[in-house]
């Protein structure tokens, strides 16, 4: 029986069998079903029950089920109040007879068809035993009534049991729209029961899996003797292991065991828990200096007195009584010593999150300015462009672009040097009032952009020295078009044309040779130009804003030119593959057309027929010209 509870007092009516919508005029029992309503406090319990006997029929019994599925009916229960229907419940009842089997058990095993003719079994979609698989039209357990339900959407193809569908070239297939002219003679007459693929899958051959040759070569520690470090080589320790310092991985998080590359500086901040804080490097690590000896660590402890600089009050993500502080240590590897500088301090604050900052810097002792060492004389991608200012007294120049930070206002913007090989675009926003004078604005913008360029010359190579003028190229400046004349729209407030708000730095470089196999790049020319915009004061609905923003940008573009054009190759040297019929003059595969299929100008069947008949004629001619053949003819025809 079924039961459900409803909230209010209703009358319940009951319909059996009809699928159309009924109204509130039925009865409490219909067919084999009864409806009982037991009212309760707030709810009524409605019970629908079957009154039939569901035993499977024994030979002499009556009032029993003849088949194992005894009841398949659809019921409707209506909740009505005052002849107005308020709710309807559909019940689809499918009840199986109680089958306690008392007869004989037959020993018929399931007949497995001959695998040669039915490699997937007679009905591959018959997956459940003794039940009808939906959408499987070849399932023998499906009764015709059930099959009618899903008749339109049977599985097609091999899975639905059609292991041998008729193909288009059969003479008996009528369904092709386009039959070629020769179709009556060259259609396949052999029946589908006897295709060459019978038993094809039955034998089944096994193939041993070939171990794929993909092996990521694990970079193990080299056992060879060291001849020195080149740029990018990992620094090795005395035990021939990598010298590791926690660094930031490409995914963003800090990895503890990242090797340090020679001449590659970095500066990372890693967050960690105080519980898992380690003091950094183990104290007995010695690194291989590349010339045979090993460098001892020189640990310098500095005590920080002004703790407040290192404790930062946390931002909005942490509660206020937790602090974040820095513990910094810097490794300076110069040519002779490895200095590790560690800072420590004691604090009585509640420390939860530790930010450790790891900095590795390579310093050459020979250059007292502690300028960065460059491994190759040419420029390396990522290194700052060397600049010089010949007009200044100390000849140091700088070429910078803006460093994005904070709100992006130009008044608080900082600079970052232009790095070789990295095209960049950065900018800041300038606040402009509505009453700004246009020429003043132009001057302001130009001055701000010019503050980025504090150089007159750019070094050709990474090791350009200040004493040699040939090592430097002059920056070509295309100054903005300074129009001092009265502009016709200069009297309009809030709009200024021709503001040189975009600075374009174009650096042209080229490959000029190689050192130890590594191509060296040199800067050939630098050009600085300005692009103008029209600035307009941005108003809201009414112009109540006092300032509007003008974005000014600086972009750096690196353009590679060939230092010399490549020597044009002679046709002898141009060595396209022999089978490239598009580019070669001589195309052997197309010449031997019927034997190879590269030519597509003529239908293959025609060419084959012509070729075969030609071969036949040639053969005939050869045979007939043979005197042996004429003798044979004469002797056999007499």
């Amino acid at each position, binding site marked *: 029986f079924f039961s459900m509870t409803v909230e209010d007092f209703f009358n319940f009516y009951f319909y059996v069998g009809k699928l159309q919508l009924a109204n509130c005029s039925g009865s409490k029992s219909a067919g084999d079903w009864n409806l009982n309503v037991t009212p309760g406090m707030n709810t009524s319990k409605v019970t629908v029950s079957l009154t039939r006997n569901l035993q499977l029929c024994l030979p002499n019994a009556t009032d029993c089920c003849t088949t194992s599925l005894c009841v398949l009916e659809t019921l409707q229960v209506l909740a009505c109040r005052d002849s107005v229907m308020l709710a309807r419940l559909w019940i689809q009842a499918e009840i199986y007879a109680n089958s306690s089997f008392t007869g004989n058990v037959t020993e018929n095993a399931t007949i497995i068809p001959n695998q040669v003719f039915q490699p997937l079994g007679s009905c591959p979609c018959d997956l459940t035993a003794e039940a009808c698989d939906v959408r499987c039209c070849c399932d023998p357990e499906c009764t015709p009534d059930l099959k009618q339900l899903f008749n339109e959407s049977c599985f097609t193809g091999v899975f639905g049991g059609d292991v041998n569908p008729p193909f288009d070239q059969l003479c008996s297939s009528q369904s092709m729209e386009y039959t070629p002219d020769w179709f009556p003679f*060259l259609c396949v007459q*052999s029946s589908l029961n006897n295709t060459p693929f019978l038993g094809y899958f039955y034998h089944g051959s096994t193939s041993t899996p070939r171990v794929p040759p993909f092996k990521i070569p694990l970079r193990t520690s080299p056992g060879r003797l060291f001849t020195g470090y080149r740029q990018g080589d990992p620094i090795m320790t005395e035990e021939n292991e990598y010298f590791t310092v926690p660094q930031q991985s490409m995914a963003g998080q800090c990895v503890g065991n990242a090797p340090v590359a020679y001449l590659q500086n970095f500066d990372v901040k890693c967050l960690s828990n105080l519980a898992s804080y380690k003091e950094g490097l183990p104290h007995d690590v010695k690194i291989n200096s590349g010339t045979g000896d090993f460098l001892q660590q020189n640990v310098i402890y500095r005590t920080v007195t002004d703790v407040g600089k290192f404790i930062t009050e946390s931002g909005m993500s942490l509660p206020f009584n937790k602090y974040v502080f820095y513990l910094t240590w810097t490794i300076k590897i110069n040519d002779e010593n490895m200095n590790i500088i560690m800072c420590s301090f004691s604090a009585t604050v509640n420390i939860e999150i530790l930010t450790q900052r790891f900095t590795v810097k390579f310093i050459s002792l020979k250059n007292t300015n502690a300028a960065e060492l460059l491994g190759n004389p040419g420029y390396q991608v990522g290194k700052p462009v060397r600049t010089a200012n010949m007009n200044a007294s100390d000849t140091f120049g700088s070429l910078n672009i803006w460093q994005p930070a904070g709100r992006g206002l130009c008044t608080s913007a900082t600079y970052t040097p232009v790095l070789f090989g990295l095209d960049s675009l950065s900018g800041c926003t300038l606040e402009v009032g509505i009453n700004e004078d246009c020429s003043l604005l132009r001057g302001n913008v130009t001055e701000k952009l010019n503050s980025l360029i504090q150089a007159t010359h750019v070094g050709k190579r990474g090791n350009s020295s200040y004493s040699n003028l040939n090592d430097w190229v002059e920056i070509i400046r295309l100054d903005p078009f300074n129009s001092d004349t009265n502009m016709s729209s200069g009297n309009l407030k809030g709009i200024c044309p021709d503001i040189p708000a975009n600075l374009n730095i174009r650096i042209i470089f080229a490959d000029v040779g190689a050192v130890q196999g590594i191509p060296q790049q040199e800067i050939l020319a630098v050009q600085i130009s300005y692009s103008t915009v029209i600035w307009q004061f941005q108003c809201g609905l009414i112009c109540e804003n006092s300032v509007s923003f003008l974005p000014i940008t600086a972009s750096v573009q690196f353009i590679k030119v060939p230092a010399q054009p490549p020597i044009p190759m002679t046709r002898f040297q141009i060595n396209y593959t022999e089978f490239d019929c598009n580019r070669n003059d001589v195309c052997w595969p197309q010449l031997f057309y019927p034997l190879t299929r590269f030519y597509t100008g003529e239908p293959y069947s025609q060419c084959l027929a012509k070729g075969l008949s030609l071969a036949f004629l040639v053969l005939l001619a050869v045979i007939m010209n043979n005197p042996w053949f004429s003798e044979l003819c004469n002797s056999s025809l007499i």
Partner: protein
Amino acid sequence: NNSYQLSSVPLQILFYINGIYYIFYFLATLAMIVYKSQVFSYPDDFLAPDLALLFIMAILEVLQLYLGSKGNLTEEEAPLALSLVITIGSVILSVYFLVWQTYVLKADVIINAVLLSTYGLESVLKVMAIAAFVS
């Protein structure tokens, strides 16, 4: 003049026609096998038996025609009988190409049917000729 000449003229004519027809049959079947191998997909080891049987059939045919013609013209029953036996082999092969081949095209059916009828007629005439020579 039948008393002096026991050789069967129809048989000889039939040998002649059979020879020419067989050349056409051989080339046509070869071309069709080549066509089938390009258009349909043959499982791996079905093409070789078809071609081998075709060439064996060609050899048998040459032998049969030669022996039969010689036997008929020299009025000896031994080569003619041998030719009859070889004809049976040819018939079997022709039935193979008609029914048991990997892919049977309608053109295959036609030319094999013609060949089989030729063989049938030939066999009848050979038996009659042997009977004539023996007696």
